[in-house]
């Protein structure tokens, strides 16, 4: 039977709507199923003013057999087989005839008792009981109180509609009684509407300018976009985030298209689209890569016959673009190079000094990186990028639109005649901004971004910041993630150890923990993020553990190790080899004393293993030096045969202590060699887990 819930509220933030609907869906199903009410279909819908749950539920709880136990059998049944007064009293108090009594076996012994069918509650009863706690358990990023209530919610609740099979569920929640009424659009049809069922509800809402299904609204918006764009033969500059936000923000989506004076096209696309998006939540219109002097907006209205909405938005946008143009022209009057000296007045972090200090460190790190990566020809241009990259923090445009940091530096420096390598590096040096964001296109951008993030990571950890849970004030996780992502995607072959040494040396005088401790912390941090990246690429966690065990000095190698393991995991040699490695590890719980002495070999098995080891060691070293882990692995697998023979023919735990130690020492060498490639003993085999 149909269940319909609508919580009407004042305007919820878009992100809260999405999250509340997800929580409602999950909790509602959980609670009802826990109460043995069958849940068929269940879906959520809504707008910023209504959270809606629609479900198909069984009429009541499923029946259940219930066992009621009375006195212990020993007391309840007399030796002659008759019931004792205790049993008679129990039957009377439960109101059941004596013939229903039976013996119930429990872990505590035998009892007298009886079984009965537990009467199920009706679904409305269950809902009336459970819904209030579901609603109060909803969590929001930020919640509020209002009026004289101590109850918290995202925004004030205005009405509660709750129907089961067409009838109001008698329900009270924080002062609201459930009813069968809703209201139309708050401006275009603010009237009370009686609701019978979902089909009628969604239909009548539509007649009153509310489209309750978000998918339907999205389709409407996209259709209107297309319609407007086909006239211009242009495209909407895609912005999924904005569309998602606005989708929940309106009940009756109306796409409007407006224009702005062409003189504003002198502004770069980045500035135009930011001014439109941030200020007014408007979409830019482009033809290919070219910005057109139009915009699209999404209003919450059925129509705009007088064009008031369009012209109002045009007027506001003109004002914003006027401001942006003023910033653009004014900012350009002062070369970035001239602004650099003022960076000493802008604090980066109290203990780490100003941005002036930061760019000095960045120039040195960039110089180091270009040397290491054989980019000497770009060295000068990139050092210049490092010097200029934070100067845009002092421009009006970035003060107004902080998300344009870096981008403005790139655009301004280009206008002011910087080398292309320089301005592109500045432009891209905040990227990647998120887990999904791309790394810089240019090598220079990647190097500058890497230097900047490394300096922040090392510095902030070095002055004693720790991150816990959601508190990560300098975005260290994002920074560490970006460092790994850039090195891997740009295939930078860099020693992380030396790179960290270099970065740490530059902040040496400011540290509040030891340099060794700091390096350890950074490596741990980076290893965690690397693990995360590899897991997201779909590698098995045990393969990652095995591959990272030899260390993460070269991130590109660490990834190559996982990949080699992953490629090999299907081969028939894989499992026997791992079992062998584990066997070796087990035996080596007894630690060998003293060095290996080949003169002490007695059996052929150990002599052969030793000579195989020597050859394989030499070959695998060559492979490892080239970073060819697949090759090294194949060679290492050749240890399988001599090891098998060794274990067949040789008794490791010989009575003679000298011989025993020597054999253990031989195995230890074998293990060390294997561990240079991966710690295979960490790999979980299917046969083991069964």
């Amino acid at each position, binding site marked *: 039977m149909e269940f319909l819930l609508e919580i009407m509220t004042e305007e919820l933030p878009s992100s809260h709507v999405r999250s509340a609907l997800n929580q409602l869906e999950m909790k509602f199903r959980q609670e009802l199923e826990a109460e043995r009410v069958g849940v068929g279909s269940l879906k959520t819908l809504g707008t910023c003013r209504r959270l809606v749950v629609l479900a198909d539920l069984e009429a009541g709880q499923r029946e259940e057999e219930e066992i009621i136990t009375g006195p212990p059998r020993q007391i309840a049944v007399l030796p002659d087989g008759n019931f004792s007064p205790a049993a008679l009293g129990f039957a009377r108090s439960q109101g059941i005839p004596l013939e229903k009594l039976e013996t119930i076996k429990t872990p505590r012994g035998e009892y007298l008792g009886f079984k009965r069918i537990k009467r199920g509650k009706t679904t409305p009863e269950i809902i009336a009981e459970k819904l209030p706690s579901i609603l109060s358990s909803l969590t929001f990023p930020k919640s509020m109180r209002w009026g004289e209530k101590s109850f918290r919610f995202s925004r004030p609740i205005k009405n509660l509609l709750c129907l089961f099979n067409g009838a109001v569920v008698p329900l009270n929640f924080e002062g609201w009684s459930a009813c069968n009424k809703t209201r139309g659009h*708050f401006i275009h049809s603010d009237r009370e509407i009686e609701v019978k069922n979902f089909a009628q509800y969604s239909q009548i809402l539509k007649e009153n300018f509310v489209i309750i299904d978000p998918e339907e609204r999205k389709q409407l918006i996209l259709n209107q976009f297309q319609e407007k764009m086909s006239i211009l033969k242009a495209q909407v500059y895609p912005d999924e985030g904005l569309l998602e936000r606005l989708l929940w923000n309106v009940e009756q989506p109306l796409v409007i298209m407006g224009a702005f004076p062409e003189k504003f096209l002198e502004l770069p696309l980045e500035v135009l689209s930011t001014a439109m998006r941030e200020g007014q939540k408007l979409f830019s219109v482009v033809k290919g890569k070219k910005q057109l002097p139009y915009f699209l*907006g999404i209003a919450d209205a059925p129509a705009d016959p007088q064009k008031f909405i369009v012209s109002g*938005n045009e*007027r*506001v946008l003109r004002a914003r673009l*006027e401001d942006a143009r003023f910033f653009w022209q004014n900012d350009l009057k002062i070369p970035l190079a001239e602004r650099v000296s003022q960076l000493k007045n802008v604090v980066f972090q109290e203990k780490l000094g100003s941005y002036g200090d930061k760019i000095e460190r960045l120039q040195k790190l960039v110089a180091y990186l270009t040397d290491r990566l054989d980019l000497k020809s770009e060295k000068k241009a990139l050092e210049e990028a490092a010097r200029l990259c934070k100067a845009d923090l002092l421009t009006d445009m970035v003060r107004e639109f902080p998300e344009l940091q870096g981008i403005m530096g790139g655009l301004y420096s280009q206008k002011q005649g910087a080398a292309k390598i320089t301005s592109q590096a500045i432009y891209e040096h905040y990227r990647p901004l998120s887990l999904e964001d791309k790394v810089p296109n240019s090598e220079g951008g990647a190097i500058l971004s890497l230097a900047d993030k490394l300096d922040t990571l090392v510095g902030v950890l070095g002055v004693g910041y720790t991150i816990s849970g959601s508190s990560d004030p300098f975005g260290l996780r994002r920074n560490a993630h970006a460092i790994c992502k850039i090195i891997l995607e740009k295939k930078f072959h860099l020693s992380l150890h030396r790179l960290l040494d270099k970065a740490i040396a530059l902040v040496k005088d400011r540290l509040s923990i030891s340099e060794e401790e700091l390096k350890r912390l950074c490596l741990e941090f980076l290893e965690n993020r690397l693990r995360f990246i590899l897991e997201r690429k779909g590698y098995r966690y045990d393969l990652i553990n095995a591959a990272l065990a030899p260390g993460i000095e070269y991130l590109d190698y660490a990834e190559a190790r996982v990949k080699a393991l992953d490629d090999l995991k299907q081969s028939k040699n894989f499992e026997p080899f791992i079992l062998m490695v584990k066997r070796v590890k087990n035996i080596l719980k007894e630690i060998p004393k003293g060095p290996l002495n080949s003169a002490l070999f007695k059996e052929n098995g150990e002599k052969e293993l030793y000579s195989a080891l020597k050859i394989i060691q030499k070959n695998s070293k060559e492979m490892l030096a080239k970073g060819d882990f697949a090759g090294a692995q194949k060679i290492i697998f050749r240890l399988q045969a001599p090891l098998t023979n060794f274990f067949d023919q040789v008794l490791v735990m010989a009575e003679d202590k000298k011989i025993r130690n020597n054999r253990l020492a031989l195995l230890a060498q074998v293990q060390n060699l294997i561990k240079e490639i991966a710690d295979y003993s960490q790999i979980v085999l299917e046969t083991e887990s069964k």
Partner: protein
Amino acid sequence: MSMQQLFLKLYDFWSNQGCYLAPTYDLEVGAGTMTPDTFFRVLGKKPWKVAYVQPSRRPTDGRYGENPHRVQKHFQFQVIMKPSPVNIQKIYLDSLISLGINLKEHDLRFDEDDWESPTIGAWGVGWQVLLDGLEITQFTYFQQAGGLELFPVSVEITYGLERLEMFLEQKDNIYDLKWSDEVSYRDLRYREEKEFSIYNFEQADIQMLQRWFVFAEKEAQRLINQNLLLPAYDFCLKCSHLFNLLDSRGAISVTERVKMIGQIRTLVNQIASNFVEQEGEK
């Protein structure tokens, strides 16, 4: 409709809602929220309804009279209702209708915008109200002020009068607005904007302002110790304005900013908690 007619209509509307019409407060403030008619009255349990026009100074927003939208002093129409009525959004919409706006011809949106004033230890949850994309009102349910949880909760409605007037007159330039039928916004304010921009950005004596800040802060503390809370609060407002002037002179570094705001907040929080303690259950 001229700007003064707008004042009159809003006064009329909110006095019909039972609001006391407060005279404008006579100190420089950054927003209507900061005057005693809001700050002290949202504390504690007593119901309160007030409406008033408050000139609000934001020295960094000065543009020498050259920008058609930004000014270093603008006018707010401030409403406080405590406790917040259940139908407050509807009442607010009615106030717009009373100005002759036919909402059905426009796009009115309550757009998530929470408010925070670290200086007076206050924050709230609410929206900016957009009319055809133009921000005309800030609508906030106060959750905290003076560092104290508020109960009951007050709702604050702050109309940006110039914005609203630009909408009503369909003007693109603030200086073209009519204050009355006879007097334009330019007549009244242009010279003021120009001179104050020069003062705020170029002429304000940094060292003197810094010294005054120290004096005002000390005086506020002394007055708190004397249990003269309203005068003490006035000196906090002075601190806040001096801070804003120093800021527009670019004389405050990031760390100093945090420190100075913290100093003012500490004073304001003391005033708020002493006030609530003394007014208590009256």
